């Protein structure tokens, strides 16, 4: 009586009880036919992993070290914020699609440096010497930080290619029992070897878990230019506002010149420039929280004027943080920093509904935005680690058009009720 194929796979997967496993092992040791079936099953397991891995559009050479692969993936809010603005260009391409030139990491990095250089030059030309001095370090820091996919590739270069990895060696005949728990097995590249008739049973090999866990780990690699680490530069309340205005102007001009189709094709779209803008703002919020009261009062004096032109100030964002959590029925002004957003949402919105609490940063809380032209269900909000409440929108499967929501005091709403939408259209 020989073993069934299902039993062999269950044994190799570590799904049998110790007693059952011992019985199977004893039988395989004594039965040549079943030993051959075990070897064949191992080949199929390895082949399956290999084929499934081939579906993933992730080059094998970007895998990080095995020492880091064992750690569970950690969600880093600052990184996910960055990725949102780079998505979908910086994400792994959809499987099987032709990879355009602009997805080449080196070209993306070069484009990012070029765009930042142009932006910096524009600001320097338009700003006072002090403002330019304030912006230049940030631009230099941004330019110096490699994009996400470049980080992955640079690690890959240091480690060499997948083809250089050794194939698993066949075990001796006495070690035909599963050597490790099934979930810890790896080496799907054994398929090439497994395709050949095995001369002796080898340790079972399955799983792309390690491979993908490594990729996840690479995704979570720390970066220097993140909101939480933004340098709280000395913030002179009036001057940085001027710098922000100039930067926003430059962004708007670029956005205005770019069609929707072009924005999709650009490696560094005008939208992605906003990432740096928000990073800088986040740093300034921290600085203003720590600033003496005199500086706060000075900033407060310029608040109204800045509100009229649509720019959000650090103080206003801090006010938004204090307004957290967002409540249904509340009225909010939006920071006017995204042309795409401005075309679809009125400057003042009322949140009709809030579903569910926040989880980290990746899981967004859905809201229904009154007055938005986009269908209900596409708008979300979240609170960033720095406490700023952001309205975002899903477009093309990615989170885009992140905009700060500035809570309006109840007195303001009472004073100007006509300015806040009351009914659904």
């Amino acid at each position, binding site marked *: 009586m020989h073993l069934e194929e299902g039993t062999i796979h269950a044994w190799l997967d570590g799904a049998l009880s110790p007693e059952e496993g011992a019985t199977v092992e004893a039988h395989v040791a004594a039965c040549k036919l079943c030993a051959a079936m075990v070897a064949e099953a191992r080949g199929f397991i390895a082949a*399956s992993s290999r084929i499934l891995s081939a579906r*993933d559009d992730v080059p094998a050479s970007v895998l990080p070290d095995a020492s880091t692969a064992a750690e569970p993936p950690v969600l880093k809010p600052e990184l996910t914020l960055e990725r949102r603005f780079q998505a979908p260009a910086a994400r792994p391409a959809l499987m099987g699609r032709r990879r355009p030139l602009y997805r080449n990491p080196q070209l993306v990095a070069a484009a990012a440096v070029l765009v930042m250089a142009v932006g910096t030059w524009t600001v320097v030309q338009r700003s006072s010497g002090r403002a330019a001095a304030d912006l230049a370090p940030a631009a230099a820091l941004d330019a110096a930080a490699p994009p996400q996919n470049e980080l992955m590739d640079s690690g890959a270069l240091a480690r060499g290619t997948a083809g250089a990895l050794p194939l698993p060696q066949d075990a001796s005949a006495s070690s035909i029992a599963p050597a490790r728990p099934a979930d810890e097995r790896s080496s799907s590249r054994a398929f090439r070897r497994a395709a050949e008739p095995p001369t002796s049973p080898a340790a079972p090999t399955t*799983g792309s878990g390690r491979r993908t866990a490594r990729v996840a780990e690479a995704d979570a690699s720390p970066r220097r230019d993140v909101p939480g680490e933004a340098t709280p530069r000395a913030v002179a309340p009036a001057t940085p506002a001027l710098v922000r205005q100039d930067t926003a102007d430059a962004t708007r001009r670029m956005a205005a010149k770019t069609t929707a189709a072009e924005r999709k094709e650009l490696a560094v779209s005008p939208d992605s420039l906003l990432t740096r803008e928000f990073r800088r703002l986040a740093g300034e919020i921290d600085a203003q929280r720590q600033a003496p009261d005199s500086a706060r009062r000075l900033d407060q004096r310029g608040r109204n004027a800045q509100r009229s032109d649509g720019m959000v100030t650090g103080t206003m964002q801090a006010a938004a943080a204090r307004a957290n959590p967002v409540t249904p029925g509340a009225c909010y002004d939006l920071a006017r920093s995204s042309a795409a957003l401005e075309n679809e949402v009125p400057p003042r919105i009322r949140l009709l509904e809030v579903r569910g609490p926040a989880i980290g940063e990746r899981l967004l809380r859905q809201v229904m935005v009154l007055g938005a032209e986009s269908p209900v269900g596409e708008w979300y909000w979240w609170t960033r680690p720095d406490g700023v409440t952001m309205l975002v929108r*899903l477009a093309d499967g990615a989170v885009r058009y992140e905009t700060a929501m500035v809570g309006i005091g109840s007195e303001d709403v009472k004073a100007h009720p006509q300015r806040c939408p009351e009914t659904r259209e």
Partner: protein
Amino acid sequence: MRDDELERLFHLYHNPLVRYLTRRLGDRDWAEEVAQETFLRALRQERLTSERSWLFAVATNLVRDEARKDERRRRHLQLLAEEERDRVVEPVSVDSERAREQALARRVVDALAERDRLALLMKEEGLNYEEIGEALGLSVGSIGTTLARARRRLAETYEALQAAEQGRAGGSHAS
């Protein structure tokens, strides 16, 4: 479910779930959306007894629901059409070789029976036999047989298609 509990689930299972869905759907963005909806549904649960199998089962059901939407289908078909076009017109190179391998793998995986494919994808994400059985409504005793069949078909079909392609390539070179 409490926020911290859901956050723990999210950190534990988000990546494997997205990978599973990406392999299932062939579309990373779509997979991210389905995974997000899955966690939102988990949020509405008081308590999950078998959290991993629950998440994978809900994600699988969501995919089935989503598949009924015409827009999604069009998008998927459009992707497949693009891939087919790329596969035909691209010159032979390292990249195109990899793309060809991807397309082949996709065809082979998609050719599996639904139950076999799902069981295989879940096993690849580390679910044990009990969890796979719970997620797919199968008995634990049948999972080994299901996986054995899926793996054999996958490997044999892949090999056959690869041989057929090589034969076609050889024929075209000869002619």
